[in-house]
C-alpha cells in the first residue's frame, strides 16, 4: 500500500469528520477538523483516479512518482493543496472554479490556524461555509463512489442534504429567474440603446466601513460591473512610507448592474448566479487622510491604538 492510495485517505477523511461532528458547530475546532477532512477527501479523489496524481514530480528527481507506482522509496512527497484543488477541477465532475476557490478558502483558514498565532476559524461562522463545504464533499464523494451517508452517518447526512438540496433549489430558481428577466429585457432593447448603456459608468456609491467592491461580470449581459461585498474580520493594514495599504476580504452581498439593471441581493443568490466565494481588495491611502476619515466615523481611537501596537 502506498502513501497516496485512495482508501487510507478516505478513511482519514472520515475520522476527521467524525471528530468534527463531536464538536459544537460554533467551536473553532469544528472548522479546523472539517478542513483537515476536506484536504484528505480532495486527495482521495485524485488517488481514486491514480495515486500518481498526488506525487510531487519535482522533489528528489521525482522519486515520489516511483512510490506512487509501488516502488519502495523513503519519505514520498505529495503535491501542495493548490495543485490538488486545481486537479480536482479537472477530474471531479461538477467541481468548478467557484468550488475550487471555496476549498482554497477553507484550507487558507486551516493554514492560518496551524501556521500562525491567529485563530483561523474564530470569525468564520458556519453560516458562511458549511453548506458549501457539504456540497463540495458530496461532489468529491460521488467521484470516489461514496456518498454523504457513508461519510457523515445518516443523521448528519440528512441535515447536510437539507442544507444543500432544499436551499439550493429555491435559490437557484430565484437567481435564474432574475438573470433571465434582466437578460430578456436587455436583449429586447434597440441595439443603439444597448450600446449607450454599455458606455455608462457605474454609479458612485458611498460604502459603509464594512463594505468593499470589486469588478465582476454580469451574468445577464456579460458587462463588467461592480460587485459589492460585506467585509468580515478586521482589515489588514500596513504602512509603506506615508502610504497606508489596506487589504479587506469581503463576501459578495449585492450586485446592481449599471448596464442591464440586473439586481441580485444576498450571498446565496449571488452564489447561485456564479458570483459567490470571497474577494479581497487592496487600497492605498494617504495615512493622514485615512485616519481623518476614521475620526469622522468615530472609530479613530480604537484603530489608532491598533496601529500604534503594530
Amino acid at each position: 500500500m502506498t502513501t497516496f492510495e485512495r482508501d487510507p485517505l478516505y478513511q482519514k477523511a472520515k475520522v476527521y469528520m467524525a471528530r468534527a461532528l463531536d464538536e459544537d458547530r460554533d467551536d473553532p475546532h469544528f472548522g479546523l477538523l472539517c478542513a483537515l477532512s476536506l484536504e484528505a477527501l480532495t486527495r482521495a479523489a485524485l488517488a481514486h483516479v491514480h495515486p500518481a496524481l498526488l506525487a510531487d514530480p519535482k522533489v528528489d528527481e521525482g522519486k515520489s512518482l516511483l512510490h506512487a507506482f509501488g516502488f519502495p522509496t523513503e519519505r514520498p512527497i505529495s503535491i501542495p493543496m493548490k495543485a490538488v484543488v486545481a486537479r480536482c477541477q479537472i477530474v471531479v465532475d461538477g467541481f468548478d472554479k467557484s468550488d475550487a476557490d471555496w476549498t482554497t478558502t477553507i484550507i487558507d483558514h486551516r493554514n492560518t490556524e496551524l501556521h500562525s498565532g491567529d485563530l483561523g476559524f474564530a470569525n468564520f461562522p458556519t453560516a458562511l461555509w458549511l453548506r458549501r463545504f457539504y456540497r463540495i464533499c458530496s461532489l468529491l464523494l460521488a467521484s470516489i463512489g461514496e456518498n454523504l451517508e457513508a461519510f457523515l452517518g445518516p443523521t448528519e447526512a440528512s441535515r447536510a442534504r437539507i442544507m444543500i438540496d432544499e436551499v439550493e433549489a429555491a435559490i437557484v430558481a430565484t437567481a435564474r429567474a432574475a438573470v433571465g428577466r434582466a437578460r430578456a429585457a436587455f436583449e429586447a432593447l434597440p441595439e443603439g440603446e444597448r450600446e449607450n448603456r454599455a458606455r455608462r459608468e457605474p454609479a458612485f456609491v458611498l460604502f459603509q466601513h464594512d463594505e468593499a467592491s470589486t469588478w465582476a461580470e454580469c451574468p445577464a449581459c456579460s458587462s463588467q460591473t461592480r460587485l459589492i461585498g460585506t467585509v468580515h474580520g478586521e482589515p489588514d493594514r500596513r504602512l509603506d512610507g506615508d502610504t497606508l495599504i489596506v487589504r479587506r476580504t469581503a463576501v459578495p452581498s449585492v450586485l446592481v448592474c449599471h448596464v442591464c439593471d440586473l439586481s441580485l441581493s444576498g450571498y446565496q443568490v449571488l452564489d447561485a448566479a456564479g458570483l459567490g466565494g470571497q474577494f479581497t481588495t487592496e487600497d492605498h491611502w494617504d495615512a493622514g487622510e485615512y485616519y481623518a476619515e476614521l475620526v469622522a466615523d468615530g472609530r479613530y481611537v480604537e484603530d489608532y491604538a491598533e496601529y500604534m501596537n503594530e
Partner: protein
Amino acid sequence: MGLASSLLGELGDRGWLVAPHPIDVPLEAFARRLGEPIPSRPGRGVVDELRVVQREHASPGTASFVHGAGEFPWHTDAANWPRPPAYLVMRLAASSTGGRPTLLLPLHRIGLTVEDGSMLRRSVYRAVGLRHPFLTTLLSDADGRPTFRYDPDCLVPAAPAFQEAQEALERRMSGGDVATHRWQPGQVLVLDNRVTAHARSGVVDATDAGRVLERVYVRASAE
C-alpha cells in the same frame, strides 16, 4: 487440483467446512487447493504450530500473551494485516494429545440489518500492533464480496463515534448460531476468514493443554 466446486460452494455459503485429509500428507498440500499459502510471520514457513500456552510463557504481542491458556475471544485472524488471509486451514497435529474444541461463528449469518452493514462499512478503526498502523473498517466489500475484520485486541475505533459499530456487531454476534468443532485426526477445518469468526473454547478436560494444531494461512487464488 483445486477444491471441488461443491466444497467451495459449502465454504462460501456456511463460512467453514470440514474435509478429510490424510494424516501423513502435509497440510500445505490441502491449502494449495484453495490458493497460495502464505507465512504468518516473515521468514517462517507456511505451517504454524499452535499450542496452548500459559500467559507467563507466551511471547509479547500474541493472543496467548493477552488471554493465556483460557478462552480466546471471538476474532478473525490477522485482522490488523492490510490483506488478511482469505482462508485458514487447520488440523490436529500428529503430536497433539488433546482436542479443545474451536467455536465458529459465520458473521454473514448473524442477522445484520442494512443499517448495521452501513455502520460497519462507515466506521473507521485503527489497526494496531504492527510497525505501520493503518485505518480500516470492520466490514468492507473487497472484490465484490463482504469481508469482515474483527479483533478488539488489534482494531480500535479511530474516533469515539465509531465504537458503536463494534458494539452493534457484538450484539448480533451474541445471538448468532455458534458451531462447535471437535477436532479429529484425519480431518481439516477450513475457515473463510473473511466471514467467519472463531474462538477457542474454555477448558473442557485435562487433556486440553496438550492440544496442538497445525495452521496454514491461504491467500485466495483470485486475489
